[in-house]
C-alpha cells in the first residue's frame, strides 16, 4: 500500500474535526461513543504525525523521498483577482514537532479526562469541544498562510472559551471564560491589523502565503519595494497576537482566571498547547521578526518582564492550580524572551519540554483535586503518604520545572540562559533570578501540600489518570536527551562556559534551600516574613492592581462614558430615525404595491400592455 504524503497530512488535521462533528451529530447522549471518538481521532492524528516523522527521516537513495521536508499540500479556498487564500497543511520540522506535542500530550490528556470527568453531566459536550480544540490547534500548527493561521487562532480562542466555561452554571467559570475571550479579542484585533498591514505593504502580487513571503520579503526589502520603516509597526501589531494568546504582560490577566475550567483543560490548553501558540507563531514567522531588531528587543523585554513578574505572583499564591498558572506565565515569558534574543530553536525547545512537564504538573494537581476535592495548599498536606504515585509525578514535574540538573527543563532553560548571557546581560540576570524564584515557589508548594502533616485523607486516582501521568513523567525526564534542537536544525555544539549552568544550578539550589528552611524545617517563620514584608506582599497579593485598573477602565470609561454615548446615538438616531423610519417607509411601499395585485386578470393584462408600451416608447424614443 502506498501512503500519499498529502493524505497523511490531511489526516493529521482533519481527523479531530471529524470526531467533533461526529460527537455533535451522534454522540450528544452517548458518553462512551463520544469519548471513544475523541480519543480515537486524536490517536489517529498522533499516529499519522509519527508516520510522517518516520517516513521523512528515512533516507532513500534510489528515488527522491516523497516525504521530503518541507512539504505542502493545499486547496485553493477563495480565489479572486489579486487575492488568493488557500487552506492546507505545511509540514516541516517545526510543525512536525509541534504537531507531535499537540497530538501526543493531547492524547494523554484526553485519556486522563475519561476518568477525571467521569461524573460530569456534560461529558459528551466536553469531548466534542475538546476535539474541536484539537482541530483548531492543528489548524494553527499546520497553517500555510496568515489567514488560515488566524482562523485557527480564533477557533482556538472560541473553543477555549467553551472549555473554561464548561461549568457555566458556576458564575466564576462563566466570568473567566468571558474574560479570556475578551482579553484575547483585544489582542487579536492588533494581530489582525498586523496581518492586513503586512498584506497591504506588499507590491502587486500580494500573498498571505508563508513560504512565498519567506522567500520574497528579504528581496523586496533589498530592492526597496517594501520600506523598512513600516516593518517595526507591523512587527509590533503582529506581536499583539502572542501577547494575548501566550498571556504576556500586560494581557496576562485571563490565564490565572482560566483555571476555573476542568483541570485537564488547564493542562492541555492553558499549559501545553494553546498558550504556546503565540510562541509557535513567532517561530513560524521568525523570518519576519528577524529583520526588525527593534521589535526583537521589545519582545525580549516583554518576555523577561513576564517571566519575572509572574514568578513574583506565584510566590504568594495559595491555590495549587494558580501557582501552576503563574509558573506557566513565567515559563512562557522565557520562551518569548528566547525568541526576542533570536533563538527560535531555544524557544521551541523550551516549549516542548515545558509542554511535557507542565501538563504533568497540572494532571498531578488534577489528580490531587480529584482525590481530595481541595486545591488550597494550606488545606492540603501529607499527600506523599496517601497519594504516592501522584506525588511522585508532581515531584518529577516540579524538579523539571525548577531546572534540576538532568531533567528536561534544565537543558532547555539552560539554552535560553546561555543565549541571554551572550546577547543581553540585564535580561540574563533577570532570568537567572526568576529561575531561583521558580525553584522557590515550586518547592514551597511541594513542602506545604505534599509533605508535612496530613489534613484529612485523599485516595489515589484510577489507572486511567495515573498512566498518562507516568507517560508524561517519562517524557519530562528524557526530553533533554533526544536531540530536539538538532531536529529543529541547530547544528554545532553550544560551548558555553561552565559559568552559566553553574550559576543556574546555584540559584536553583538557593531557591530550594530557602523553601526547605521556611516551609519544611520552619527555621524561618513564614508568618514573620510576611509581616516584615507587608507592603510588597499585599502588592503581590492584589496582583499589581492590574485587574483593578482594567476593571476601572471597563466599567467607568468604557461602559459609562463611551457605551453611554453610543447607546444614545443608537437609540435616538439609528433606531428611532434611520431603522424604524426606513422600516415604516418600506412597509408602506409594500402595502401600496399590493394594490396592483387585484386578482383580476383584466388588471394584469392592462399592466402587461402598459409595460410593453412604455418599454417600446423608452427604447425607440430618439
Amino acid at each position, binding site marked *: 500500500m502506498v501512503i500519499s504524503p498529502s493524505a497523511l497530512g490531511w489526516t493529521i488535521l482533519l481527523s479531530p474535526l471529524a470526531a467533533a462533528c461526529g460527537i455533535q451529530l451522534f454522540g450528544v447522549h452517548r458518553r462512551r461513543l463520544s469519548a471513544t471518538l475523541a480519543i480515537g481521532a486524536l490517536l489517529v492524528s498522533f499516529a499519522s504525525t509519527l508516520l510522517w516523522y518516520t517516513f521523512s527521516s528515512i533516507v532513500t537513495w534510489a528515488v527522491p523521498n516523497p516525504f521530503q521536508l518541507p512539504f505542502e499540500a493545499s486547496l485553493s479556498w477563495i480565489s479572486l483577482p489579486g487575492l488568493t487564500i488557500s487552506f492546507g497543511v505545511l509540514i516541516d520540522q517545526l510543525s512536525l514537532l509541534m504537531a507531535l506535542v499537540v497530538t501526543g500530550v493531547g492524547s494523554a490528556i484526553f485519556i486522563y479526562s475519561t476518568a477525571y470527568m467521569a461524573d460530569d453531566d456534560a461529558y459528551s459536550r466536553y469531548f466534542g469541544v475538546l476535539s474541536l480544540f484539537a482541530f483548531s490547534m492543528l489548524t494553527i500548527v499546520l497553517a500555510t498562510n496568515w489567514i488560515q493561521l488566524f482562523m485557527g487562532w480564533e477557533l482556538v480562542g472560541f473553543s477555549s472559551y467553551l472549555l473554561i466555561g464548561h461549568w457555566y452554571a458556576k458564575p466564576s467559570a462563566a466570568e473567566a471564560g468571558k474574560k479570556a475571550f475578551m482579553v484575547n479579542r483585544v489582542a487579536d484585533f492588533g494581530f489582525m491589523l498586523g496581518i492586513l498591514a503586512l498584506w497591504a505593504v506588499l507590491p502587486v502580487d500580494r500573498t498571505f502565503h508563508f513560504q512565498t513571503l519567506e522567500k520574497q520579503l528579504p528581496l523586496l526589502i533589498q530592492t526597496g519595494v517594501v520600506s523598512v520603516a513600516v516593518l517595526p509597526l507591523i512587527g509590533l501589531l503582529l506581536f499583539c497576537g502572542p501577547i494575548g494568546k501566550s498571556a504576556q504582560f500586560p494581557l496576562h490577566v485571563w490565564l490565572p482566571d482560566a483555571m476555573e475550567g476542568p483541570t485537564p483543560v488547564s493542562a492541555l490548553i492553558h499549559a501545553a498547547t494553546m498558550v504556546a501558540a503565540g510562541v509557535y507563531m513567532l517561530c513560524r514567522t521568525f523570518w519576519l521578526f528577524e529583520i526588525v531588531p527593534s521589535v526583537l528587543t521589545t519582545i525580549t523585554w516583554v518576555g523577561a518582564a513576564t517571566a519575572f513578574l509572574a514568578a513574583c505572583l506565584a510566590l504568594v499564591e495559595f491555590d495549587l492550580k494558580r501557582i501552576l498558572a503563574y509558573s506557566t506565565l513565567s515559563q512562557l515569558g522565557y520562551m518569548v524572551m528566547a525568541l526576542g534574543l533570536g533563538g527560535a530553536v531555544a524557544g521551541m525547545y523550551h516549549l516542548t519540554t515545558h509542554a511535557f512537564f507542565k501538563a504533568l504538573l497540572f494532571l498531578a494537581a488534577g489528580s490531587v483535586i480529584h482525590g481530595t476535592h481541595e486545591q488550597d495548599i494550606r488545606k492540603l498536606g501529607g499527600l506523599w503518604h496517601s497519594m504516592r504515585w501522584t506525588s511522585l509525578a508532581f515531584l518529577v514535574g516540579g524538579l523539571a520545572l525548577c531546572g534540576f540538573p538532568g531533567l528536561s527543563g534544565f537543558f532547555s532553560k539552560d539554552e535560553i540562559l546561555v543565549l541571554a548571557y551572550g546577547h543581553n546581560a540585564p535580561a540574563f540576570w533577570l532570568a537567572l533570578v526568576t529561575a531561583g524564584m521558580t525553584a522557590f515557589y515550586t518547592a514551597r508548594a511541594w513542602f506545604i501540600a505534599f509533605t508535612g502533616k496530613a489534613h484529612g485523607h485523599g485516595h489515589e486516582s484510577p489507572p486511567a489518570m495515573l498512566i498518562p501521568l507516568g507517560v508524561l513523567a517519562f517524557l519530562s525526564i528524557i526530553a533533554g536527551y533526544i536531540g530536539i534542537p538538532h531536529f529543529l536544525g541547530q547544528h554545532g555544539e553550544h560551548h558555553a562556559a561552565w559559568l552559566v549552568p553553574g550559576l543556574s544550578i546555584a540559584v536553583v539550589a538557593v531557591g530550594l534551600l530557602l523553601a526547605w528552611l521556611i516551609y519544611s524545617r520552619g527555621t524561618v517563620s513564614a508568618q514573620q516574613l510576611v509581616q516584615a514584608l507587608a507592603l510588597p506582599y499585599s502588592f503581590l497579593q492584589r496582583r499589581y492592581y492590574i485587574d483593578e485598573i482594567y476593571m476601572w477602565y471597563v466599567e467607568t470609561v468604557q461602559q459609562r462614558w463611551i457605551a453611554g454615548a453610543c447607546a444614545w446615538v443608537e437609540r435616538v438616531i439609528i433606531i428611532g430615525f434611520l431603522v424604524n423610519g426606513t422600516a415604516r417607509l418600506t412597509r408602506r411601499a409594500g402595502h401600496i404595491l399590493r394594490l396592483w395585485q387585484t386578482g383580476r386578470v383584466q388588471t394584469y393584462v392592462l*399592466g402587461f400592455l402598459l409595460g410593453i408600451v412604455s418599454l417600446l416608447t423608452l427604447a425607440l424614443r430618439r
Partner: protein
Amino acid sequence: MTIPLPWLSVELFACAWILVLLAADLLLPEARKASLWLWTLAGLGICAILLAGQAIAGGHHLIQQMFLVDPFSRFFKALFLGTAAVVVVMTRPFGRHLAGRLGAFYLLLFTAVLGMLVLASVHDLLMLFLGLELLTFSLYIMAAYLRTEARSIEAGMKYLILGSLSSGFLVYGMALLYGFAGSTHFEAIRHAFEVGPVPPIAVAGLLLVMAGLGFKIAAVPFHLWVPDVYEGAPTPVVALLSVGSKTAGVVALTRLLFGAAPTMAGLWTNVLAGLSAATMLYGNLGAIPQTNIKRLLGYSSIGHAGYLLMGLSAGSQSGVEAVSFYLVAYFVSNLAVFLAVTWAGEQLGSDELEQYNGLSKRSPFLAAALFIGFLSLAGVPPLAGFVGKLFVMLRAVESGRLWLVAIGAVNVAISLYYYLMVIKRMYLDAPPTSTTFRLDRLATVTLSLLLLGVLWLGIVQEPLVRQILVSVRP
C-alpha cells in the same frame, strides 16, 4: 437528412420515455400506479447518464443549425434534470391529491422537462418557440391539476390567459425579427444586426421577444401572474415554475441576446438594468405584507429574477458566468425551501404563514431547513445565495452600474426582513398545537443533500466556478 444520434440522445430518449410513461399509465393496474414516480426518476436518471455520455467540447449544430449542443446547454440540461428529480420527490407527499391522475402528472412533468431541454439548446427562433410552448403548455395543465380546488383552477386559468398574451407578443416579435433578417436563425439575425442599418421595427421585435421571455422569468412588468398562480397551483408545480421555468427563461434569454443580438448590447443591457431594478424592488417590497407562504415565495422569486437580470445586464461573458452560479445557488436554496414547504403544507393543512408559528418545536428539522434556505435566499454568508449575489453584483460593478448594485444591496436588506419574519414565527412564536411530525426518509435525504449543497457552495466555490468557466466560455 440524418440525425446524428449521440448529440440528440437525451431529447430523443425523453420523447421515448414520455411514451413509456403513457403506456405504463394505461397498462398498469391502479394499485401499482403509485410506483410511477420511480419510473419518472428512472427516466430522468437515464437522461442524466446519456447527458454525461456526451462529454464533448465545442458546439455541435444539429437539425439544420436550429439546435446547438455545447457545454453551456449541457450544464443547464443537468440542472433541469436535477430540478425535475427534486420535483418528483416533492410529489410523494402530495400524491394523494392527485390520486387517479398521477400517471398523467408525471407525463406532463416529462414534457415540461423536454421543453426545458430544448430551450437550453435553442439556436433558432422557431426552436425557441417550440421549447417554450412545450414547457408552458405542460405547466398550464399542471397548475390547474387540483380539479376540485377553485384556487388551482383559477391559477391555471390566469396562467393560461396571461401566458397566451405573452406568447402572442413573443410571436409578434419573432415575426418582426424574421421580417428584418429574412431568417429565424440566430446566426442570420446576428448578421443582420451587425451589417445594419437597424430599423426601429427590428428593435421593437427584439424587445417583444424579450418581453415574452420576461414573462417566463417573472420580470416586472410581466410578472403580475406570479403571486396568484403561485398561491393556487400545487406546490411541486410552483417549485417547477419557480426554479425550472425561470432558469429555462434565463437560459433562452441568454442564448437569444448573446447569440442573435450581441451588437445590440448597448440597448438591451440598459433595458435589462432598468427591468432588474424595478423587478428587485417590486418583488421584495411586495413580499412584506404577505400572509401566505407560497405567495411570499412568489414575490421572492420575482426579486430573484431581478438579480438574474442584473447579472445579464453586465452584457459580458463573466456576467453570464455569475448568473450561472446564481442559478445553481438558487436551485439548491429554493428547492430546499419548496421541498420543506410542500411537507409543511401537507402536515399543517394550509400554506398560511400563521400555521408556521412554532414550527421549530413541531418539526425541528423542517424549521432548520427553512431557516438555512431562507438565509441563503436572502444572501447571508456563508451560504450559496450570498456567493451568487456577490458574483452578480461584482459583474454589475464591472459594467459600471453602481446605482444598480446599490439597489441590489438595499434589496438584500429588505428581503432579509420578510424572510426573518417567517423565521421569527417558526422559532419564537407559540405553536397552535403541540403535535409533532417527521419527514419520510426520501425527503429527509433529498432535503439534507440540498442543504449540504447550500452550505458547500457557500464555502467552497472553486469546483463549480471551474465547471462554469468550462461551460460558458465560448
